[in-house]
């Protein structure tokens, strides 16, 4: 069984500040982390291999050189191999270029049964990587899966959370699956200390550029041009309504009527 896990480096939202005076993100003290849903995808891949007599888990990322840390962390957690498509422009180029680059790398890996990724990135939460990747690869895609199991030769089953329970979806490999946290998310394992100690050994992460994967300037052209950053209005002070429940409800309805909310 061979599984590719697409992982992304994102800013830890807790460390990103917004400068209202300069109308921009203040990233001076921002810390980069692995996109948390991508860790769920990695954990799903590791459990699938462990439950089915082993296999190959390959962590794949694209971005600037620093994104290598994501792949090394994945190796410390349990991935067998790590690949980085290194290009400082790639992240800025947008989802289409990233999906093309990842798909090109995956098709060079030989037989791959599954491509897993987190349902959405912490940065924009667009959640469009999995469908785009599937389109590029010409594979089917399953979104919002909370678990994946191996059924029989070449067949997998995804559990997809739905409003009234869970949907069991049989899938034939190869397939792209986006993993979502779900109501009772699996807990990703901790990195292993000995694997951490070895994860920065030179040569452990295979690095290539989009050009080496056969992507030309057209493929890498940005599909969206940012027009600028608009900050939401500053939050105003709230109001606490006291008193008994019925009095408070009456007062609240009064306020809503005055503000023409209802």
């Amino acid at each position, binding site marked *: 069984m061979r599984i590719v896990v697409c992982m992304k480096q994102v800013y830890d939202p807790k460390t990103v500040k917004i400068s209202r005076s300069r109308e921009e993100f203040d990233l001076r003290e921002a810390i980069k982390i692995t996109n948390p849903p991508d860790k769920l995808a990695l954990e799903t891949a590791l459990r699938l291999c462990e439950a089915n007599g082993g296999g190959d888990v390959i962590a794949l990322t694209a971005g600037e050189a620093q994104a290598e840390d994501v792949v090394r962390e994945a190796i410390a957690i349990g991935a067998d191999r790590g690949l980085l498509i290194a290009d400082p422009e790639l992240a800025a180029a947008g989802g289409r270029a990233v999906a093309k680059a990842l798909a090109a790398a995956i098709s060079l890996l030989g037989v791959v049964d599954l491509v897993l990724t987190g349902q959405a990135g912490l940065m924009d939460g667009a959640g469009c990587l999995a469908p785009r990747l599937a389109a590029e690869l010409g594979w089917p895609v399953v979104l919002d899966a909370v678990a994946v199991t191996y059924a029989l030769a070449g067949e997998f089953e995804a559990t997809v959370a739905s409003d009234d329970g869970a949907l069991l979806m049989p899938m034939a490999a190869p397939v792209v699956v986006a993993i979502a946290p779900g109501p009772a998310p699996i807990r990703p394992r901790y990195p*292993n*200390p000995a694997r951490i100690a*070895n994860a920065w050994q030179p040569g452990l992460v295979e690095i290539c550029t989009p050009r080496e994967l056969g992507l030309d300037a057209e493929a890498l052209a940005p599909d969206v041009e940012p027009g600028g950053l608009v900050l939401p209005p500053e939050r105003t002070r709230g109001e606490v309504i006291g008193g008994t429940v019925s009095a408070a409800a009456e007062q609240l309805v009064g306020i809503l009527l005055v503000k023409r909310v209802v």
Partner: protein
Amino acid sequence: MDFSLPKTHQLFRKMVWEFAEQEVLPKAKQVDVQGWPDMDVVRKLGENGLLGTPFPQKYNGAGLGELGYCLLMEAIGAVCTSTATFVGAHIGIGVMAIYLGGNEAQKQRYLPDLCTGKKIAAFCLTEPNAGSDAASIKTRAIRDGDQWIINGSKIYITNGPIADVMTVLAVTDPALGSRGGVTAFVVEKGMSGLSVGTIEHKLGIRGSATSEIIFDEVAVPAANVVGQVGAGFITFMQTLDTGRLGLGAATLGGAETALDMMCRYAAGRMQFGKPLADKQSIQWLIADTATDVEVLRSLIYRTAWMVDTGQPYTREAGMCKLFGSELASRAVSRAIQVHGALGYSRDFPLERMWRDARIAEIFEGTNEIQRIVIAEQVLRPYGVRVRP
């Protein structure tokens, strides 16, 4: 000069803080109340490869050196001093004595199970009449063919009741004393005549198990002599040198938590219409503690680096333990003051942290002994011989 942690240790630091917060912190109050370690936490420490943090990978260790060990102790010490005490007694002195003094066969035999937590270690030095004066131990080992017969008792042994493997110091030649007459042995649970005596009821670190260990005609194979016959005192003193550093790292974690709690509370608690943090009297407590913490962290990481790069570190390790243990008590005491009556309440962790912090000024060499060790190192170039 580069003061940043290596990438490996940055990730390890992140891992151990997450582990400490998710696995150790939720049990911190419970272990204090029940007066016994949580064996589930012990198992998780082993399963996640943390009980072999400093040791080479060929013995199932993580290979993260003393710096890795200090990061582990800092993170565990930040959430539960009892658990840090368990880890310190296991890795820092119990296993460390075999690693530093043992021969290759002994390391191959004991370290793999100890590094994965399949077995738990303890370090048996203190006796009723030999604490700071470690050379005055009375536990006796007498050679009998290809084995040694050990008689005597050890007290205040951390992990004593739960240990599978113990490194034990015993007198083998009373005439030679500490200079060649004292030998270290590996004693295993289940050996005939070995028993756990009185369990200690302690003021703090109640979630670590401490007991008397009794040796009644315990027959130990000659192959269990750690290193050479007569080299035990040196092995034990070397072990305590590194143990001190790890202990200092645990006090760093405790002081960091006290500082964090102090700042959080001072920022949110309103008195006289303003947050406490607006008062200069509170700001000074916070500024002093933050400065102390920064000094200790610099000292701990640098001393760990000295160990990992093979430099002498006896003086610095003593300073880590001395400064760290006094800081931990001081920082928690200040945090209690900032919290007022809430800090004194048993519903809040500060009273536990206060009881827990106190031990660090006593165990692994009292602070009086640390001052002797440091003075000895400082005064030696001046031709002064410092003696206890």
